[in-house]
């Protein structure tokens, strides 16, 4: 659980992944739950995406806090972890259209000289086969993560 000072003005929660590859849909599922919880709060915005895109920088240029939620294929202690995301200027792969959070932050810094606080919440998936719906184990894991995110944001947004 991070101990971060956050501003209230523009918080973005971005969950991404492919919901048709079962637990790869963790990010989008988490955003659905969080959007419902925070539907009456101002200053908090949500994206449920298949993948990250470079033109997100136009939306994020005024962001003060960004939380990314994505599935992890590797084993994580407790099933999930928070990681601070720093701007990365070299992480764009050469043969792919895939963008990662650090690269998005790198774009923000390069284009707008903005470096918002950013966290990646990785949630361990169990089944990435073709199909819809999370596995029960992972659904429970996402619930824990959602609770942690709510606690984290309540410090900034107030109850």
């Amino acid at each position, binding site marked *: 659980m991070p101990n971060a000072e956050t501003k209230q003005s523009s918080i973005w929660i971005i969950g991404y992944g492919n919901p048709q590859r079962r637990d790869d849909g963790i990010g989008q599922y988490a955003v659905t739950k969080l959007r419902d919880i925070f539907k009456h709060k101002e200053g908090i915005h949500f994206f449920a*995406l298949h993948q990250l895109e470079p*033109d997100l920088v136009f939306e994020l240029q005024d962001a003060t806090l960004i939380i990314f939620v*994505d599935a992890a294929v590797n084993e994580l202690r407790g099933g999930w972890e928070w990681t601070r995301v720093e701007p990365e200027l070299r992480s764009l792969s050469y043969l*792919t*259209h895939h963008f990662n959070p650090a690269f998005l932050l790198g774009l923000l810094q390069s284009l707008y000289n903005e470096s918002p606080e950013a966290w990646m919440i*990785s949630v361990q998936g169990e089944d*990435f086969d073709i199909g819809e719906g999370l596995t029960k184990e992972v659904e429970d894991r996402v619930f824990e993560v959602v609770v942690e995110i709510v606690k984290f944001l309540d410090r900034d947004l107030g109850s």
Partner: protein
Amino acid sequence: MTTVQKITIDPISRLEGHGKVTIFLDGNGEVTDTRFHVTQFRGYERFCQGRPFEEMPIITQRICGICPVSHQLASAKACDAILGVQIPETAYLLRKLLHKGQYIQSHALHFFHLASPDLLLGWDADPAVRNVVGVIGKFPDAAVKGIKLRKYGQEIIKALGGKKVHPAFSVPGGVTNALYESDRDRLLAGFDEAYGTCQLAIDLLKEWQEKNLDEVKRFANFESNYAGLVDKDGCIALYDGNWRIVDSNRKMLVEFDPANYLDYIGEKVEPWSYMKFPYYKPQGYPKGCYRVGPLARVNAATKIATPKANKELENFRKLTEKGLLGCTLLYHYARQIELLYCLERAEELLKNPGICGTDIRITTGPANNEGIGVIEAPRGILVHHYGVDKYGKITKANLIVATGHNNIAMNRSVELVAKEYIHKGKVEEGMLNRVEGAIRCYDPCLSCATHAVGKMPLKIQIYNFNGELIDEVQRD
């Protein structure tokens, strides 16, 4: 005794969309063969069986996060054929507009994010800066404009389908919703800037080509057939048209209705690749292999139907008259000509009085037990072919994607670059960059489906004939 060494380039650590390059050397350390492997949408053809055919445009677009629109449109066309209907005129216009939005975002992304670092910063630039951030540092104005142009294409898609990735728009018999006049007007207001950015890309490319003409001529330049869809006048056709194949001198080999593709196109299976190798049947395999995508389309077509793009095509023709027809690096130039064409077409479509019509869908039951939908995806010809039972459930599905059509060409391109830069078992500086660059010209779609957190290293491993690792090059 002949001995063989092996170099493996394993560029992408992913659950799916995995690609790697293997280079085989003989006992003297000279390149004898190369293989580019890609796994593509494993299981979709099987996964779809038993599903109602109406679901196919939504299911199959999930194959890819970059070109979902292409899959959705090809799928919807196949479903139209199962229904046995001709969709309403407004739906036809809207699908074509959606398609143009897809091209604009995809081609802009490719040039400004993937190709421009090679060209504008140089093949041999430090990998730490040879990326889009490096481009931002050196050409900040171009970089921002490139992201905006891509966003413009995505905005077209969102205006029609409600979201930028995986829109629910094209359905069997038409489309789901009409275009609001306010959205039409908003999109029309963006063309001046979009044209300007496209022209900027063309100018940057042409300037680079002039300065590097020797490399353009030498780099993965080889003879091949080319395939693309054309309209009745021989102009590039992206949404529909006849399937034309020309030879290495642009002489027509065949032109046929895509619905008859099985009469002309075979698919070879090689034991070392998950991908199939399509080829033109009358020439057999591998002679009948062909290239698809931007270079293939401009080579296969007689002309382009819009004035600005056709004028640029004339410049392209002058260049290729000088023996450059097969230059793989010219994929980039051809791609920008197509981007210009798509902007012109999108503007035409948005100014069409019927674009905001409301007659957008025909609903009826299946009339045929088979449907074939063929379009030009940004990377080349895309085929969706379905069979259904009397209840409309999918009994078979065959999908041929552009990266498959280009399979043999990408292998050939890698081979030519490797032969130039590997001698006596030593990998010359710059070889790795150029192998990447050769593959990147085709813009193969490796970003489909599931992704994994983490970096994607590019690795070359050199083994001697005993299987011992003797050298390793890696870039994170």
